[in-house]
């Protein structure tokens, strides 16, 4: 398998998160180092900080898709309407045909907030409200079905749900659909939205920081939860010679790798053995040596265990030679959406030649050996890596290059 066959063109993409809606706002927030995290005030939960997306409560879905109305699908619909990404996908549909474009979306909790609200509104006989539509809201497939219906596509659709690795893994499953010849292009992305389940669940695990999360800091004490949605269009390398209208960010997906820890449900392998394997497999698939990676966008959640494990894993493969940072200080941990949001950040870093240093760090953990950036640095890059690690020991690494 040659590198040329592995590479896929990312011809349009956008993302929305607490730091901004789309490429221009995200780029401005990264450059000015402005966080999107605010004190949490959601469904009566006021512990810690959260990253919410402005306008999601008021966003209305198209009337024909009203059955899908829930916070998560509103979030992904906002993304579809950002940076002209839906128009770019329409142009691809006109070229390839609706049946040749698949949809692979990652989410950890889909529209679970709709079920939470329904359970709160249960009557004395234990009946859930008549208007609660599980199939089109909480169900995992709802997200992928919504995106496919909104874009009138007819290719295979999948929802990938593997906790915080969901939308990174979605890139791999999209690549399989294209490389197996089942699709010419795939709409890839993810969405996870604020809900009681994750805010209270991570709090029960004592993993939510009282302040803003500060990945890689010596005194880091947990995550801040954020919500986000992202959409990209991946196309086969020998697809269209003329692309559609320019939309959002562009890149090349050069490689990908996945692994399992096989260790514990919610604690990463202490030496990062699974993470090392995912990164090595991504390098192998891109046919690149470790020395070719110019920057690593860490999973960097801000928990004691994740960041220490990831530092060990990164320094095992790359020594102290590759600048790396986590951008969760801007967005919070957007769970199943972090893969696609951080793909956007990687593409912007490549295009504009700057590395965003970790936000909110007073002092990098002195035990860390990797080259952790805490300020933005202007440097040209050719290859960047993005990591995502989830509960259940699911690890996924992606390698991006500039758009061809």
């Amino acid at each position, binding site marked *: 398998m040659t590198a040329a066959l592995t590479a896929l063109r990312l011809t349009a993409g956008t993302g929305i998160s607490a730091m901004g809606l789309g490429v221009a706002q995200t780029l401005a927030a990264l450059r000015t180092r402005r966080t999107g995290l605010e004190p949490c005030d959601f469904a009566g939960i006021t512990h810690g900080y959260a990253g919410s997306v402005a306008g999601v409560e008021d966003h209305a879905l198209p009337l024909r898709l009203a059955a899908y109305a829930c916070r998560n699908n509103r979030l992904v619909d906002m993304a579809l309407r950002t940076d002209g990404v839906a128009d770019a996908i329409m142009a691809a549909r006109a070229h390839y045909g609706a049946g040749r474009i698949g949809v692979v979306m990652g989410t950890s909790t889909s529209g679970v907030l709709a079920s939470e609200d329904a*359970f709160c509104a249960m009557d004395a006989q234990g009946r*859930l409200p008549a208007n609660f539509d599980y199939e089109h809201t909480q169900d995992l497939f709802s997200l992928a079905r919504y995106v496919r219906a909104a874009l009138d596509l007819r290719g295979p659709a999948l929802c990938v749900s593997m906790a915080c690795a969901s939308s990174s893994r979605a890139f791999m499953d999209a690549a399989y659909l294209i490389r197996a010849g*089942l699709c010419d292009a795939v709409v890839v992305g993810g969405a996870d939205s604020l809900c009681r389940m994750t805010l209270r669940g991570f709090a029960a695990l004592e993993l939510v920081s009282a302040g803003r999360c500060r990945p890689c800091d010596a005194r880091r004490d947990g995550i801040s939860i954020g919500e986000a949605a992202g959409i990209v269009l991946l196309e086969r390398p020998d697809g269209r010679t003329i692309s559609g209208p320019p939309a959002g960010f562009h890149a090349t997906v050069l490689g990908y790798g996945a692994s*399992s820890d096989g260790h514990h449900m919610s604690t990463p392998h202490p030496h990062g053995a*699974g993470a090392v394997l995912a990164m090595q497999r991504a390098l192998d698939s891109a046919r690149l040596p470790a020395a070719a990676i110019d920057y690593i966008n860490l999973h960097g959640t801000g928990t004691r265990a994740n960041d220490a494990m990831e530092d060990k894993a990164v320094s095992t493969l790359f020594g102290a030679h590759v600048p790396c940072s986590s951008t969760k200080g801007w967005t919070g941990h957007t769970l199943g959406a972090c893969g696609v949001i951080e793909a956007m950040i990687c593409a912007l870093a490549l295009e504009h030649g700057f590395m965003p240093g970790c936000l909110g760090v007073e002092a990098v953990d002195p035990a860390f050996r990797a080259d952790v950036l805490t300020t933005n640095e202007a440097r040209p890059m050719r290859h960047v890596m993005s990591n995502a690690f989830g509960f259940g020991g699911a690890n996924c690494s992606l390698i991006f290059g500039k758009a061809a």
Partner: protein
Amino acid sequence: MRVWISGLAVLADGMAGWAAARAILRGEAAWQPTPCALPPPATLAPNERRRTSPIVRLAMAVASDACTAAGCDPAAVHNVFGSSNGDGRVVNAILQALADPAAGLSPTQFHNCVHNAAAGYWTIGSQSRQPVACFGGYDWSWGFSLLQAAAEAVVEDRTVLLCVYDMAMPQPLGQKRPTRGTFGVGLVLSPRSVPHALAMLDIEYGPEEATDTPLILPDAQTTTALRTLCHDNPAARALPLLAALANGGPHEIRVAGDIGHVAIKVTPC
């Protein structure tokens, strides 16, 4: 896409393994919807084993049996897990706790509610470092998971374990997502011909509307009962393929998606 089935496992109500399922699907035995026993996974440490939920036991049992049938090392295969509802019991319990301001949320229950919990325990039990993918596809989880598992096998040129499972949804969530019975199926898919393969599958996706190939068994009563199971449990929609494998001979099977369909051409080895 062409793959070979090198191992097969079934665990479902009234079907304690592939041998029992095959006899029913051939008309050699009657089907009774007796709840199947779900063995505690022997590969987990005692404290983890004791706490595993029924659906984790179901998924781990079919995954393990399929690998045994294929004679392959569980730590060597790539893994694709598909389920419509995941662990509905845990999700339902968390939703009940969240609706009660006085109730605390169990941290263990929270990490067990992720859709990849069963796959996570499977890799912990088999000490596997291999990739896992976990899909949810509502009523169409079986067809789309099979399609994706075959794609991974062919593109990566690796053996892929496909494990698809669903169980009854408890109340009150079951009011809105009625799911009944227990059904788990495991297939080990090889991208190359292997000496002991059961069948060769040619799998394609078609964007045209289609209905599922109906389940037709020698016995009319069993046909009716198992068609109800296909309707009630998304994983049981594997039954038309399983019936084709049980009865031998070439078959063409369609698995409908919400849009489009998966077409499977079965050639016995």
